[in-house]
């Protein structure tokens, strides 16, 4: 995400603060604006790669801003951040030109992953793989290639590894992984995440014989893609 320009139009300063920090840490150039009218001006005047936009804004709301932007011919991707989670609100946003919709509260890493996905979709012809250094995950065959070896992952294993690869180095809690991979929002009081990670490690280790693993366990917190192992 190095150098991509991201105008952030969000009137809640505390939210804008950690989003700006997160995106900046991921390599983006963030321009923060607190109202819709100024946001539209910035979006029209400056060239940007992707727009991150709240809906409930002073001076001009996000829906109206999007409409104006699209009417002017601007087709840059737009991600909506909003506390309004009803289906009607989402549909209206997509109808008015949004490319993605992230309800609040959200994970900054989730936002980063979606920004990457949208910008890569535009710049890249192929979207069948996720690649990070020497780790490649084939989205069609569920094949993972690492350190010269290749293996097929089960659907859950594939989903888990893909999730970690969205933001290499970022720590994901077991709860986050459960929600993304198994689509449950309760804690089944189980170690299924640990078991799944262990299976991935065993499959990869068996193939290349090395005890090292691209997945690192962070004590008491969760798991992350071990970027140091991937140099």
């Amino acid at each position: 995400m190095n150098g991509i320009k991201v105008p952030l139009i969000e009137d809640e300063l505390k939210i804008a603060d950690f989003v700006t920090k997160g995106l900046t840490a991921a390599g983006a150039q963030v321009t923060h604006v607190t109202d819709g009218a100024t946001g539209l001006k910035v979006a029209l005047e400056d060239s940007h790669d992707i727009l991150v936009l709240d809906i409930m804004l002073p001076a001009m709301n996000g829906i109206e801003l999007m409409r104006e932007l699209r009417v002017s011919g601007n087709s840059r991707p737009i991600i909506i951040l909003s506390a309004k989670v009803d289906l009607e609100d989402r549909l209206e946003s997509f109808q008015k030109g949004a490319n993605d919709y992230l309800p609040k509260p959200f994970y900054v890493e989730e936002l980063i992953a979606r920004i990457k996905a949208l910008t890569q979709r535009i710049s890249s012809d192929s979207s069948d793989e996720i690649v990070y250094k020497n780790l490649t995950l084939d989205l069609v065959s569920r094949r993972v290639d690492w350190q010269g070896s290749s293996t097929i992952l089960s659907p859950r294993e594939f989903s888990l590894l893909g999730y970690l690869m969205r933001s290499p180095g970022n720590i994901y809690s077991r709860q986050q992984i459960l929600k993304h991979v198994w689509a449950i929002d309760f804690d089944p009081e189980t170690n299924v995440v640990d078991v799944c990670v262990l299976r991935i490690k065993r499959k990869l280790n068996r193939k290349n014989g090395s005890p090292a693993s691209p997945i690192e366990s962070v004590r008491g917190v969760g798991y992350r893609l071990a970027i140091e192992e991937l140099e």
Partner: protein
Amino acid sequence: MKPSFKVVLFINILIASAIIIFVNRIAIQIFLPLQIKQELKTELINYIGECGKFLPDREDFLSCIQASEKISLIKGFTGRYVICSEKNTLKQNDACGNSLSPSVKWDGTQSAAEKEIQYAEIKIGKTQWLAGNFYGSTHERAVVLLSLDDMSLEISRMLRAYRDRNTIYVLPVIFLLILLMTWHVFNVAMRPIRQIDKSITTLDLKTFEIKTALVAPYREFLNIVNSFEGLRLRLIQNFEKARRFTADASHELRTPLTILRGNAEALIKDLQNGSNEQIRVQMVISEIDRLVTITQKLLWLSRADANKLNPVFQKINLSDLMEQWVLDAQSFNPNLKLTSEIQPKIMWKCDPTLIHQLIGNLYDNAVKYNVAKGWIHFRLKQNDNGFYLSIENPSSPLPAKFEKQAFDRFYRADDAHSRSIDGLGLGLSLCQEIANVHEAQLRVKVSDDGIVTFTLSDSLPPPKDDEIITF
């Protein structure tokens, strides 16, 4: 079962009609003879008065009487006349003797022109007589006596004949008329009630909107209609207030939760991996996530209250969905024995996201309230009415009211459970709302030996080759 107003009204009107007829007949029995007697007496007095001029000639008198236009009315009396004369030229008997007595009080006639004709009712022995006192063509005094007892017998005979004719011909017609009248009165009485009933049955029990406007057909119904409308509008307002409160609260919570989690996430990155501080911050994030889940559930429940869950219906392979859940459950809890009976290829039109949530909540419940080394049994089968899906597990003793209150919001099985088991008591309420929006039935049963079974059942659509979601 409630009695029918139609039947009660009908019976009451029939009884009232029967009473009216009965009273009428009694009145006829009592008063008609008296009336007839009076009228006949007047008629007789007139006829006798007309023919009295022929007296004391009995034959001329009787010929005059017989020549009367209304002879049929009094022909029965011709044999009962007693004609008396002062000169004793006619038959004398006790009646005559008594009638000619000076002690008899004679009434004047009706007409001043006939003042020589006088009348009296004389009782001689046991017989009641009507007597007419005349001064005939020869100016000789004569008295005509008629037996009123005989007249009463004749009247009774006439009435009996009339009654018999009435019973055969008139009464059935009256009865039919009463039936028709009753039916008509009933319909007229029921019309406004039916109108109100028709409006009220269009009431949507979820939104309290009414499709056919409720209007008072008559002023007697104004109060009841106004009361109902007032109540309905008040319910709509209260539900909307409750819904808005929950929705607004949920909405307002999202911003601070976003700030909390975002900053906690940023903090975690700044801390050393595996450090105690990082673990503590992760615990904070876990609790924030829990709050987010609760907020989401509250919002869903509020939308369900306002009938705005907005499910997106798609035809799915429910058997595949259940199979996936069983596989996942086996990964989640290897210490619980998991078994299943899943009939393949059971298709159902539903919102897959909501049903996934429902099964997840029931499974979560089965895990949390299970016993040590317990088990969970998943079942999906087709039956005559459609299908049923059940999740069954053993549980430690539950309160007697559990079956009734399990789906109440914030209900927890008991305090002992509540302390050790995580949860807010919203999961099963949400399951019930999801079942309702699918027009399916969700029930819970606790057996005597403590086996808890949650069952979801619904009718199935006929199989079609529509778009199917597979898992």
